[in-house]
């Protein structure tokens, strides 16, 4: 894997993130914005729940016939005058993009936002070969200025505060007066607009991702709010769309149904500002548009997920609702996850793509609260899939010995209900006695790591859940 993966150090990453005041401020500011907007958009569309079932079914149908739909898609791209480059690995995809850029004699390329570009570490490869990539999505632009990676799949600069933007713009745009004032967020936006406008006009090649590929028409679809994706794919002489194989859907109608879910789940908009279907290169009579249209179609391990318990993950439409609603993501942010995809979807996808030996911590970083699954527009059972990874990690003896020993002890008790109840009754009684009048324990011997960030509630009088349940059942029968 080309990108440096820090997922094996998730615990250290998370601890650092919790102790980083700037990050905690940014997470605090951002928290809630996406949630409220999504809730309002969903509430305004009574059919939303039915649409989730439809979205799930469209994706399941496509995945069950993925070979057919990819072949149909590729044939239709070529019928419209485009070229499809099939790439099994990240390395092949990088080579394909570079070859197109070199054939076009490209010096600078503009880029729309693409997570696949992050996945294959495209920018570093272009730079190493003397081609300057320019990120044009506002969030991606500052990430590139900072030499960082996105911390969120739809809001790359989720971890930054306004002060960071101002400082970075002053540092990067040295030709502008140093004492200029950024009175409003809008001033930051305007400066980026002016700066990037020159870049859009100078670029030789434009590279975008794709939210969907439509088999029926051979179209790639991008969804943006800024308009940068459209400037990127319209102005240069060559357009390259990079997309992974599971992005294909059968028809325009299938795509439309998924689009009804995407923006509502992502930013809480009814529809994004620009949803654009690109099909082939400029037609003879057209007055604008690229002369060449290429699609770099990437597998990179996805085909291996088919037929396994992780096939459901290939339904993902990258809306980010799961991370927006995740208490773990909300506490540590995206960088702690250590690779391209953070949050619950990343905790399932990353082990599939880079290996559970490197990313085994991620599916453990979950409270199993289930919010991710409850908001997923295509109903991916994310907690179940994370549990599958935990099982695989355990089976492969990747779990530390101390954890295995304690799990063994717990399993011994759990398989003996009489003993288990005795033990929990004793523990609850003792904790109740020790904590009487306190409400909660601030710390607990042998559990300092757990209580450092949480309080342990003192058990309420009345015994364990099982004891109370049995008592109530008896009372009801009487």
């Amino acid at each position: 894997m080309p990108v440096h993966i820090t997922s094996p150090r998730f615990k250290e990453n998370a601890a650092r993130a919790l102790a980083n005041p700037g990050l905690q401020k940014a997470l605090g500011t951002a928290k809630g914005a996406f949630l409220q907007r999504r809730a309002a958009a969903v509430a305004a569309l009574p059919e939303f729940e039915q649409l989730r079932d439809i979205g799930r079914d469209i994706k399941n149908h496509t995945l069950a016939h993925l070979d057919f739909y990819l072949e149909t898609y590729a044939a239709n791209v070529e019928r419209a005058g485009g070229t499809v480059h099939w790439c099994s690995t990240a390395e092949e995809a990088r080579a394909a993009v570079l070859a197109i850029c070199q054939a076009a004699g490209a010096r600078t390329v503009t880029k729309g936002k693409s997570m696949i570009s992050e996945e294959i570490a495209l920018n570093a490869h272009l730079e190493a070969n003397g081609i300057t990539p320019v990120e044009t999505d506002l969030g991606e632009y500052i990430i590139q200025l900072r030499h960082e990676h996105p911390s969120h799949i739809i809001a790359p600069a989720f971890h930054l505060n306004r002060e960071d933007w101002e400082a970075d713009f002053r540092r990067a745009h040295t030709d502008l007066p140093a004492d200029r004032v950024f009175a409003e967020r809008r001033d930051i936006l305007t400066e980026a607009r002016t700066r990037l406008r020159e870049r859009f006009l100078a670029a030789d090649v434009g590279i975008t991702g794709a939210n969907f590929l439509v088999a029926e028409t051979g179209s790639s679809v991008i969804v943006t709010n800024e308009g940068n994706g459209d400037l990127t794919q319209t102005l240069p002489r060559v357009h390259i769309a990079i997309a992974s194989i599971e992005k294909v859907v059968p028809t325009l109608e299938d795509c439309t149904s998924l689009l009804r879910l995407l923006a509502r789940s992502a930013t809480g908009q009814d529809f994004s500002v620009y949803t654009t279907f690109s099909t082939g290169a400029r037609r003879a009579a057209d007055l604008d548009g690229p002369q060449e249209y290429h699609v770099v179609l990437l597998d990179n391990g996805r085909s291996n997920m088919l037929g396994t318990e992780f096939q459901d993950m290939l339904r993902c439409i990258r809306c980010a609702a799961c991370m927006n609603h995740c208490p773990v993501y909300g506490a540590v942010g995206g960088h702690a996850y250590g690779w391209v995809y953070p949050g619950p979807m990343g905790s399932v996808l990353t082990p599939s793509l880079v290996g559970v030996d490197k990313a085994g911590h991620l599916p453990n970083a979950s409270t199993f609260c289930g919010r991710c699954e409850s908001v997923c527009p295509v109903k991916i059972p994310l907690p179940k899939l994370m549990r599958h990874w935990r099982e695989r990690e355990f089976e492969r003896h990747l779990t530390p010995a101390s954890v295995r020993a304690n799990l063994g002890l717990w399993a011994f008790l759990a398989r003996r209900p009489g003993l288990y109840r005795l033990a929990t009754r004793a523990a609850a009684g003792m904790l109740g006695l020790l904590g009487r009048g306190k409400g909660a324990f601030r710390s607990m011997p042998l559990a300092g790591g757990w209580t450092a960030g949480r309080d342990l509630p003192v058990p309420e009088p009345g015994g364990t859940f099982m004891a109370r349940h049995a008592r109530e059942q008896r009372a009801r029968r009487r």
Partner: protein
Amino acid sequence: MSRDQILGAIRRGLKRGPLPADQRAMLDGRLAAHPRHLIPARSRVPRAEQLALLLRNVEKEFGSAERVPDLAAVPAAIADYLAAQNLAPRFVLAPHPELLGIDWSARPLLEHAARRAEPTDQVSVQHGYAGIAETGTLMLPSGATRPATLNILAETEIVVLRASRVVGAYEEAWDLLRAELGAMPRNVMFVTGPSRSADIEQTLELGAHGPRRLHVVLVDDDPAGLGAEDPSAPPGV
């Protein structure tokens, strides 16, 4: 070759070989029929309400809109709009027969050039192919008469849309496009409001890379679309 490698890996995962001919025929049939899924009820309303819904949604998405009785009234509407925004009376015009046929000399101070947009153009006047009431979205397929650059380069985009081209849902717009244009044009843009970004602290700011202003001039050429208050108005579509 990677193509065969990828298709082979997919088939191994799905535990089968290439699809048999009967199954391929079934899937080809689905592509040809391109069945619709559920269409939200919000746009299934009488014609006049549908138009009102479109305009309401354009404004909800931070665009603006006005209605004019016919194409002849368009130059005055555009001249007044530009004056109200303090913009120069100059624009790049989509070279579409409907727009070229307008008598622009009715407003002699209004200058225009019919061509693709250039970076220096401040205002563009685009031809609206269809309007989608469901979310206040404009469907703008590219072509010789409707250059895509008009949708992205100017700071202000004005879209002239005939009321008879307003539909309820996206699916109805696709049907129009399939019936009238046949094959997909190079580019089909769905535009919902002016450009914006929420990348700075998840706070929405208008005017990112695309137009800062989006103004819809709706030409009332559909008798069924007039009189939003009339509950007995015939259902549209």
